[in-house]
């Protein structure tokens, strides 16, 4: 029993290691993905070092110095309508946006994976019940579902993260369930079951590695979507509340100054766009690297 288990496990580990190496090699050859990765790492560094990079304290304002254009004395990207340094706020906004993205994706990926694994592995009435709930949730567009959840929880940054996380759960659960249905019939899984291994161990040790690749791809691409959606919620007044320097909220507040102080909305919008673009480039690269056969470019 122990031998069978070891063989199954070792076999899988060897294959997996080899596949990861190949994927990394493919990813390195993808210039777009690497550029995206570098930008994302830079953004992450900016987020981590925000307090060092920001030129002014978080809530410093100066009414007489309002609406100064870029390259004004002491203000690389100008000032907003109450004289706050736009650069400092964008830098701090990176921290908020990335935190929202990672948190929402983590909630969605972890919860979706567990639910999908259980549905796919156990099948039967549990699978049917979970699948029907997922069907209902998938019937709503993700952002609409998030708005509905925020409406019930109340607006706020934390609630926006939870809402986006919950709204993302069905997509992960559905993919994981499908992959699990296939994986649970594989020989080594059946062998492991035959050896009397517990369900939990089989699920997380032998089935889960099979679904890691799609989860990783989804999570990377979902990170960009989550950041955009969180910005959308804040833009609508359902996410971050003033004076947090969240990019979507900044875009909403700077709308009235589009024609007179273009720099506020432009640079916040650029920060958002560049971040999401880098994540998408990396996500696409990961997809090609981890699942080359599914990539249209590889054909």
């Amino acid at each position, binding site marked *: 029993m122990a031998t069978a288990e070891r063989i199954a496990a070792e076999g899988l580990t060897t294959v997996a290691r080899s596949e990861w190496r190949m994927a990394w090699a493919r990813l390195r050859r993808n210039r777009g993905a690497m550029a995206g990765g570098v930008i994302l790492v830079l953004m992450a560094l900016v987020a981590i070092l925000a307090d060092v990079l920001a030129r002014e304290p978080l809530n410093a304002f100066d*009414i007489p110095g309002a609406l100064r254009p870029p390259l004004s004395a002491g203000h690389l990207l100008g000032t907003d309508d*109450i004289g706050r340094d736009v650069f400092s706020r964008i830098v701090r906004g990176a921290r908020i946006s990335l935190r929202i993205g990672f948190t929402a994706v983590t909630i969605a990926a972890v919860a979706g994976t567990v639910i999908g694994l259980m549905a796919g592995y156990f099948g039967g009435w549990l699978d049917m019940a979970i699948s029907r709930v997922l069907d209902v949730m998938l019937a709503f567009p993700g952002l609409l579902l998030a708005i509905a959840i925020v409406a019930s929880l109340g607006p706020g940054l934390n609630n926006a993260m939870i809402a986006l996380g919950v709204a993302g759960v069905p997509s992960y659960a559905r993919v994981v369930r499908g992959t699990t249905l296939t994986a649970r019939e594989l020989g080594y899984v059946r062998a492991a079951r035959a050896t009397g291994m517990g369900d939990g161990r089989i699920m997380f040790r032998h089935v889960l590695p099979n679904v890691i690749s799609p989860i990783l791809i989804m999570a990377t691409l979902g990170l960009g979507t989550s950041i955009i959606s969180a910005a959308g919620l804040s833009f609508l007044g*359902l996410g971050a509340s*003033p*004076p947090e320097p969240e990019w979507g909220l900044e875009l909403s507040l700077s709308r009235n100054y*589009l024609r*007179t102080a273009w720099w506020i909305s432009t640079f916040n919008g650029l920060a958002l766009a560049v971040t999401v673009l880098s994540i998408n480039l990396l996500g696409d690269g990961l997809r090609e690297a981890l699942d080359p056969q599914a990539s249209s470019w590889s054909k």
Partner: protein
Amino acid sequence: MRAAMGLSRRAVLRAGMAGLVGGVGAAALAACGERQIVEKVVTQTVEVVKVVTKEVPVEKIVTTEVQKVVTKEVVVEKIVEAAKERAPGLDVNLITRPVAIGGAKWNPVKGGEISYFTFGNPNSLDPQKWTGRAPEATSPMYETLYTWGPDYAIQPHLAAELPKVADDKLSWVVPLRKDVKFHDGTAFNADAVVFNFQRFLDQAATRGSVVRDVSSIKSAEKVDEFSVRFQTNGPQPLFAKFLAGQNPVMVSPDAVKKLGKDFERNPVGTGPYKFVSWKDNVEITYARFDDYKWGPPFAQNKGPGLADTAKIKMLSTDNAARAQAFEAGEIDILLQFTFPDVQRIAANKAFHVIGFLNTGTGQYHPMNTRKWPLTDINVRKALIHGLDRRTVSVRANGGLAPLLVSNMLAPGTLGHNPEATKLYDWNVAKANKILDDAGYPKKKEDSLRYDKDGKRLELIFPNTPNPVAELFKLDVERNLGIFVDVPNIEFATFAEGSDKGNYHLGWVGVGGPDGDVLYDRFHTSFYGKPGRAWSFFEYSGEAGKANPDAKIDKLLDAARGNFDQAARIKNWQAADLYLMENAVAIPLVQELLAWMTNPAKIGGVLFMQGIRTAPYFGDFYSLKK
């Protein structure tokens, strides 16, 4: 404060004088004891005393005179100066005065089209049901028995003259014009007026804004063909004012009877323009009513509308989009709220931006006096002293806000009390001292204030969103060390929560000609009910129930129920002072409403008819080629 400064100077001078006398005397005694020299010293001393004695009253007189001048004349100049500094080209006026578009002389042109705006689609064109800004969308078509003339003079419009009150003060007779008819040919007479008011007073059917305007009326009955008697709920000295509101407009009884529910989409009134069509969320079109000849007393044009067509276009609630629509020529006149747009358009000589200075309460933050820490008057006073009103209101009111106010009733409002303006100067140091003395020290770790039990001073000011909550937080946390939570809350939820007293602060303002604007914000019978009465000062503890011991009620009731204008003003002034003494609200700014006009496309006179949200359309003419 000046008195304190005067005393201080006197004290200094007296001390100086005493020192001088003592010093000179001592020197004299030390130098020699001859009688002649002592007399010389005394003479010098007397001269010093004379100077001091003269200077004190002179200083007092000068200060008092200057103050009188400031309150009577200089205020408007100051406002104009401050507004022009912020938006060059802005033409600042009192809202009670008509203003010529483009500064041009009255030179009417017939024909063409004029276009105005409203925010969003009206919920109904029937005054029995409408709410919100529907009166703005129907202003070319509907008229009232009375209206506001220049300088807040109530003038008869569809009425022939001002109403006459009965000896018991409980009923009024309104004589009607005999030359009026509705657009559908129905006669305008006592039957029509009674029909309209019976509709408004039908509590089962009436759901619109008109309820408030007719709340003082008990019944309406025909006296003869052209006069109507109104019974009121108690003495109502402001009866004519209520009828001059923009909601109790006269509609054709025949049209209502014939069309039933469809009347709200096919309205019939008496105005200089008649209804043509209503495209939802796009526009309402009116055509000139050729038989019109009963323009109000203030109007330049007493006859039919000058343009062939008047359009009310429904614009987005998005400020930037509205400004673009105006600059692109989609509409001829626009009320705009965003400072950068006002600034830019005012600087453009192709446009004439008319700023109207509003009366009433100005914008203010009602403070919930029943929610800790605002239960402590020291905290409330500190907030009034310490809040930088210019900073907090920079995004509000188009950011123009040229005049900061320190009391409830803005200058120009009947009942404005200059004494109430002297209670609070903007003084951050004084505010912090009040908080220190009241036992709320700042902690070094976070620079925020805590009470003696270690509880942090926290205020909840929901962001609905509004343009001031964030700035309030930044300013109060930085200058006073009081933490402000600004959760995002949808306005309807916020309003409901505020009615229940769940939050500390809000941001409101109410326009009006006199101190009666305080009534539904501070009379204790309004607390706990839907509305904007959010300070809960002298609250009875039971929603909608007046507190029999409330002094503010006595003042507001005494004003509202008094037929003597001077006595009314006296009571409103007392109420203004009393509210400020008890620090129930933080006054911010007097509102400045900025109307953008395009003199190349529209001419005539812009007059807002008192507190109405739309101007009189009979005095506009089209200049489009």
